[in-house]
């Protein structure tokens, strides 16, 4: 077990190094740099000065070394857009994404696993087929499309909910505590519904597959032979074994928790990580873009690492190896 963790950690470090290198090369290969924007007030000398200040005139290898050194020390550069260190910009948006995503993920894992069991339990009945079809339909909806349709429906045609943002931009500071909370909830409903619907569909499919894979196993046959009801066979015996793939899924979902869903945040103007990246891109804030890519990659790596460890912890067959 300890050896497995050590090996996985080493892999994670290598992966992050490769990602950092890719990020660095991307920046260097891209045409232009942060100081090549058009401006009449910028003379060639000033530009050169600015570049020298940022270290852009040094040899590439030296720049690479400094980039890596800074990244290791947690210094990801300075955002030109927000005029604060990149880490600070990320820290200011992270709670918003975390709020939305933790709610969406908890709800969808709960619904998804329940519906997955329900669908398999009634797989030969009408209810099961309806669940199956509905899941496939929702699963096929692009996130930005569903987000916009819900927005159109509930913010324009039946204007019961706000169209975007986290709070009412004008009235929120003047609201009492209860009213302010309701205001926040109202803003949360649409993005949360969009994400929960899509993630639930995803999880149901996963759960269903895992359950169906567990059904031909010997212990399921044993359970049936000794007269366990079909509901308990699926809900208890198969379900526990189908939980293992859920660990992988949780690992895959981990980056979403902190990285946010770019398109959904964009549609609902949710001021989270995804929006931050999009804004950074629209004004070509290079350090912020690269930091976002690296942070996201780190999240994926961490998610995989945690999933691997959790897998080994939960499954003795892996642990004993």
């Amino acid at each position, binding site marked *: 077990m300890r050896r497995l963790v050590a090996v996985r950690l080493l892999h994670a470090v290598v992966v992050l190094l490769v990602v950092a290198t890719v990020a660095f090369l991307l920046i260097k290969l891209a045409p232009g740099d942060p100081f090549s924007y058009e401006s009449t007030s910028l003379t060639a000398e000033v530009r050169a000065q600015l570049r020298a200040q940022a270290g852009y005139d040094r040899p590439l290898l030296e720049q690479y070394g400094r980039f890596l050194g800074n990244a290791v020390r947690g210094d990801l550069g300075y955002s030109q857009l927000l005029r604060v260190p990149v880490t600070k910009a990320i820290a200011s948006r992270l709670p918003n994404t975390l709020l939305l995503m933790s709610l969406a993920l908890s709800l969808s894992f709960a619904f998804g696993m329940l519906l997955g069991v329900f669908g398999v339990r009634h797989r030969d009945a009408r209810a099961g087929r309806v669940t199956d079809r509905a899941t496939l339909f929702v699963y*096929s909806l692009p996130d930005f*499309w569903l987000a916009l*349709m819900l927005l159109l429906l509930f913010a324009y045609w039946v204007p019961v909910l706000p169209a975007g943002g986290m709070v009412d931009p004008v009235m929120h500071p003047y609201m009492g505590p209860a009213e302010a909370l309701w205001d926040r909830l109202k803003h949360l409903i649409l993005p949360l519904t969009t994400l929960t619907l899509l993630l639930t569909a995803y999880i149901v499919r996963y759960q269903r597959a895992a359950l169906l894979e567990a059904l031909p196993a010997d212990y399921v046959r044993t359970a049936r032979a000794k007269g366990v009801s079909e509901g308990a066979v699926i809900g208890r015996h198969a379900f526990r074994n189908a939980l293992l793939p859920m660990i992988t899924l949780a690992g895959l979902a981990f980056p979403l928790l902190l990285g946010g869903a770019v*398109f959904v945040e964009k549609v609902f103007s949710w001021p989270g990580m995804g929006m931050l990246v*999009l804004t950074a891109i629209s004004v070509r804030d290079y350090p912020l873009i690269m930091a976002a890519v690296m942070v*996201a990659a780190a999240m994926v790596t961490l998610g995989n690492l945690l999933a691997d460890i959790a897998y080994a912890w939960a499954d003795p067959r892996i642990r004993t190896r």
Partner: protein
Amino acid sequence: MTSARARFGRLDAGTRVALVVLVVIYLAAFLAPVIAPYGPTEQLDIVGLKNQAPSFAHPFGTDRFSRDLLSRVLYGTLVSLSVATLAVLVSAVVGTLYGLVAATAGGVVDVVLMRALDALLSIPRVLLLIAILALWDPVPLWMLVVLLGITGWFEVARLVRAEALAAREREYVAAARSLGATGVRIMFRHLLPNVLAPVIVTTALNVGNVIVLEAGLSFVGIGAREPAASLGTMFQDGTEAFAGTWWGALFPGGVIVTIVLCFNVVGDALRSSLDPRQLGAARLGTHTAHLRVASATAE
């Protein structure tokens, strides 16, 4: 060999409908230059025909530049389908080569190639594409195809490697090797035919996903753009003022959803008929591949 018609007849109704719809959409898109009533960027009458609701003359309505939306959607489908189809082809070729080389070479080369693959897989595709497209903005359409292609081959490479590793142990490969066949010859003559079928299936089914991906990128303004507007570009365009002119977003968006839904229905049917033993597992595609790898290394 069963005839194609007999096979088609054995599919369930939903799958048949999905297949037919896909064929119709592909045909309509590729016949767009012939059947579209107007050009995609043709401004009919900027004063009199602006933002017209759907009617007999303009079944999908017109947009704020008085362009006929039916024609635009037809051409946009053509762009979306072409971009996605070509991109998955690029992915298939790169992924197949990578996986074959890893499996044939084995040893250290295999380990290094697979570790590199892990690293590449850990960069979220959407974010990487957004970063690249924004840094090189504006990107020509063929470049968009290449970018979508070279960020989508990782799963193919894993699949191919796994299949090729299995095929490598067969007797005919040993026979070929003892006859003095080179590694390259074994790779292309003996391993490639074995991995082709699963590659073609996953590739074909991925078209739907890539259409969504491209549409998403176009939706934030960095994918396909005028004059080669895709469905995503049009959907974005339609949402700009969509409260009043709902048709501008509804029809391009509807086509995207229809295409993806059909691909997923066909995919589900295909996977469960290829692998009836486990009705579910294979349905997950990429993520089961991940699972498989995890459990394969664990056993």
